[in-house]
């Protein structure tokens, strides 16, 4: 017998804000935060475009000497999520909680620092701290250590579906009774390999990303983190916590198509959506809003549009689907976790966020992408889609709190 799981708290650190309400207002207004980067550059490249997080002073101070930028973002979002869930350190039931952090790139910047020193250091001069600082497990253990959590600590790497995957594994642990509370989400920092790699593959936008738009020409990157505290329903009720939403289930699939390119027909996305609906006891008719993966690449956006039609049939044009990556850029492993927070806020505010930078839809994209401005509407059930480089798709179902 599966136990029911609720979302008890959320936290984000994004270019659009590091607190939930300003973050939500900025999204609803359709504000695009993609622009010239001030704190991150790559030698040999033009000034880069993307989004950066300005962490408040107290978060910057939190940076553990042994953790890099990615861990710092994860720690900042986790702190906010636990506070939002009303769980201070030492709160009853919190000690047994675990952590799952998803990441695409992890502490890759540690490798960058190693390599910057490389021509001079050579193999004999390698920083002894590199062994532990390049260990991505720290993204979870630093969160656990900071908050005194002694449950399982997992780091899940499934490229850009990592945040959703972390939510799914947390759901497995809570719904099966292995844990009562899990701190789950995703974090990623900007790295030079992702910029240079996408540039060389021709998948980096030349301006800013335009998901589903005629001008779509590739991805804009960003950094950030999104973390949710998920909890068994009765456990949350007993401590008088207010559930923000129900985490009703998830679906997964793997394209096994190509190491980088997704299946062009979106079949993997369809399979993940079908499994998510079936295992959460949700019908396609109940779905009010779909948070798209929506990266702004033709491959993704057209395949995702096809997947919507396969699931919703005639109704596809009546189901709003939007990509907040149009405002935040693609925050890699953080993206789907931040989008899960946006779904939770959509339920709270009874409104859905827009796709910014969408003036004229791409000829193969003919759905309701909520262009430019958010929209007030009744929302009871959301699907949160994500697809990873390498082909792993995760769809999470988030419903109104029971």
């Amino acid at each position, binding site marked *: 017998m599966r136990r029911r799981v609720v979302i008890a708290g959320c936290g984000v650190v994004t270019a659009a804000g590091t607190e939930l309400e300003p973050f939500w207002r900025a999204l609803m207004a359709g504000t695009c935060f993609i622009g010239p980067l001030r704190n991150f550059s790559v030698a040999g490249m033009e000034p880069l475009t993307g989004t950066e997080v300005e962490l408040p002073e107290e978060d910057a101070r939190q940076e553990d000497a042994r953790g890099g930028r990615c861990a710092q973002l994860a720690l900042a979002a986790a702190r906010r999520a636990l506070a939002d869930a009303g769980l201070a350190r030492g709160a009853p039931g919190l000690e047994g909680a675990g952590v799952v952090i998803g990441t695409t790139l992890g502490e*890759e910047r540690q490798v960058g620092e190693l390599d910057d020193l490389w021509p001079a250091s050579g193999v004999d001069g390698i920083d002894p701290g590199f062994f532990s600082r*390049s260990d991505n497990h720290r993204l979870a253990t630093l969160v656990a250590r900071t908050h005194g959590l002694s449950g399982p600590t997992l780091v899940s790497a*499934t490229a850009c579906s990592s945040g959703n995957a972390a939510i799914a594994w947390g759901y497995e642990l809570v719904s099966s009774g292995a844990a009562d509370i899990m701190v789950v989400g995703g974090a990623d920092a900007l790295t030079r390999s992702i910029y240079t790699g996408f540039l060389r593959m021709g998948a980096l936008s030349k301006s800013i990303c335009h998901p589903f738009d005629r001008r779509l020409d590739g991805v804009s990157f960003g950094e950030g983190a999104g973390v949710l505290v998920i909890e068994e329903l009765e456990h949350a009720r007993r401590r008088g916590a207010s559930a923000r939403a129900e985490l009703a289930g998830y679906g997964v699939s793997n394209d*096994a198509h190509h*190491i980088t390119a997704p299946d062009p027909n979106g079949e993997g996305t369809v399979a993940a959506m079908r499994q998510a609906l079936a295992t959460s006891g949700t019908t396609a008719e109940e779905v009010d809003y779909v948070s798209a993966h929506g990266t702004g690449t033709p491959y993704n956006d057209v395949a995702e549009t096809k997947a919507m039609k396969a699931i919703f049939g005639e109704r596809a044009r009546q189901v709003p689907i939007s990509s907040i990556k149009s405002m935040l850029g693609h925050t890699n492993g953080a993206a789907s976790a931040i989008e899960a927070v946006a779904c939770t806020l959509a339920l709270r505010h009874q409104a859905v966020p827009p796709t910014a930078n969408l003036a004229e839809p791409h000829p193969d994209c003919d759905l309701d992408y909520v262009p430019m401005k958010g929209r007030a509407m009744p929302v009871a059930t959301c699907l949160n889609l994500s697809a990873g480089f*390498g082909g*792993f798709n995760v769809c999470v179902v988030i419903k109104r709190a029971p």
Partner: protein
Amino acid sequence: MSAGVGSAPVAITGTAVLTPLGDSPDALSESLRAGRTAVAPTAELGGAAAAAIADFEATRYANVRGLRLYNRPTRLGICAAKLALAESGIESAGLPKEHVGVVLASTFGHLETLIEYDRSLVTAGLQRTNPALMPLSIPSAPGAAIALSFAAKAFSVTLSDGGASSFDALGLAARLVGGGRARACVVVGSFSACPDLLRAAWRAGLLAPASEYRVFDRRRAGVALGEGAAAVVLERLEDARARGADPRAVVAGQASTFAVDAGCLEPALRRAVERAIRGAGLVPGDVGLVSAGASGSPAGDAAEARAIAGVLGDGAAETPVMAIKANLGDVFDAAGLVQGIAALSAMRSGRAPGITGLEEPEVPGLGYLRREAAIQARHALATSISYEGACSALVLSRPDDR
């Protein structure tokens, strides 16, 4: 009888290891019983302890597309997966690929490729880097390559939990298979330290001088990094029996915890062990064999011994304890799987290997095997404490007891 980790009992139907002491579970257990060791001094690291596979040729085991592009830990993982799938007979069972999943335990499997790519950016410049390397440089890449090699379409997940990785991977995979997310799942652990990582570990003082390398011993002086891969194929016990497969074992219990500071390693592991045994529907007295993770770590080995002794209580001295890192070094992401597979071989053959080099145990009262011995066990416990403080426990049972 308990349901075990998943919501239905999950069996191991195929096993594989690639180690310096043998490329099959039988060959490895023969080497272990003979007391052979792969740990040797590394000349360029001042005689520090390490173990490596001398003559690994991937094409001897697997012939899959793209093999030559993949780095050594990825190839090791692909080959282990191939061998385990072959042993399980699942490939000839005609299972649609939509029902096959992959979970890879890999924290550092991408690192060599990332360093190669990133270092070429620094030393040769953007235009001279090989763009094909970038997609293979992210933490999820080795797992994506394994899933692509076998067209596994149910899911493809990488867990990067350091020394706890393959315990957590086995636990997650058992939950996913038990819950019906796949009919079969190959769980792989793979580890091969690239030169930078090995050198950083040495400079950080982690590695013992080879001449002083021993585990559980009062005079232990640090760890030895090993090399290897292991894989198991999981199916529901019911499905395995229905297709006439020979289940090797049942994944009866798995639990992981985190020690928030170094002072609580022992209680954290104790909690994990108690939970895994309880989850298996057993009592401590049912454990007939312990396959310990002792790695020569000053803090970890003592805490592990005390935790095992604490849980086993009066039966501690009579319960045989094996510790294969004494012979293989720490195969890190693969360690839990190798420990489990070695324990299965011992249970099946009724002969368990001694702990090579153990003279004076730091913690008395455990049934440390000093030499090869006859055992009778129906349930084996594998344990581990990672350098980060993640504590893991796994219970494997003989299938006729389930």
